């Protein structure tokens, strides 16, 4: 049963620290997405890739967030420096073209 995996599942850090979240998409999926979910904003698309190339990162605060796909089995989302307002659940999802996305379990980030 193929699944998207994310690490870490939980992260507590202090303001100003760097945070790196990792995602392993489902093998064979060519599109990878990063989302952020908060109670106030709901689900927000931060960035996504197709065939490892960034397609859209307009949802990300550019000055502190960066997303990469070093290879087909790994996507990373970095926040540097982190701020309390970045506290949220970050989801990675993968899919094929326009079809359904399969979500990972999420990383719950708390920035104090």
């Amino acid at each position, binding site marked *: 049963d193929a699944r998207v995996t994310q690490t870490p599942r939980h992260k507590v850090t202090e303001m100003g620290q760097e945070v790196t979240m990792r995602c392993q998409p489902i093998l064979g999926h060519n599109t990878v997405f990063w989302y952020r979910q908060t109670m106030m904003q709901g689900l927000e698309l931060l960035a996504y890739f197709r065939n490892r190339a960034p397609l859209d990162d307009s949802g990300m605060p550019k000055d502190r967030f960066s997303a990469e796909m070093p290879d087909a089995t790994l996507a990373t989302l970095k926040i540097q420096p982190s701020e309390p307002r970045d506290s949220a659940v970050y989801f990675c999802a993968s899919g094929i073209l326009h079809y*359904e996305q399969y979500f990972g379990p999420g990383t719950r980030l708390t920035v104090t």
Partner: protein
Amino acid sequence: AQKVTQAQTEISVVEKEDVTLDCVYETRDTTYYLFWYKQPPSGELVFLIRRNSFDEQNEISGRYSWNFQKSTSSFNFTITASQVVDSAVYFCALVAYSSASKIIFGSGTRLSIRP
């Protein structure tokens, strides 16, 4: 521009009642895909169904059924004989063909099933 509206923020019903979650979408594309996702209390988002714009046939899967009507731009989801395990937030979503896979989610409907 694409948009998905889930007007029902919260619904609460007693177990075994039928419940319908509404979803209205907007897009100018003639080719698009509609989805429903479930987010149980555990937090993970679970894919339930996909329909494409050329297939208006309704779908039934066990106690779940979906009614897709292009005339009203709606893609409603009905749970028959609801169970406590159906309690979750349900998201309707849209991908327009021209959007390069960018999915637009509705704001979600929180469904509570009371025993």
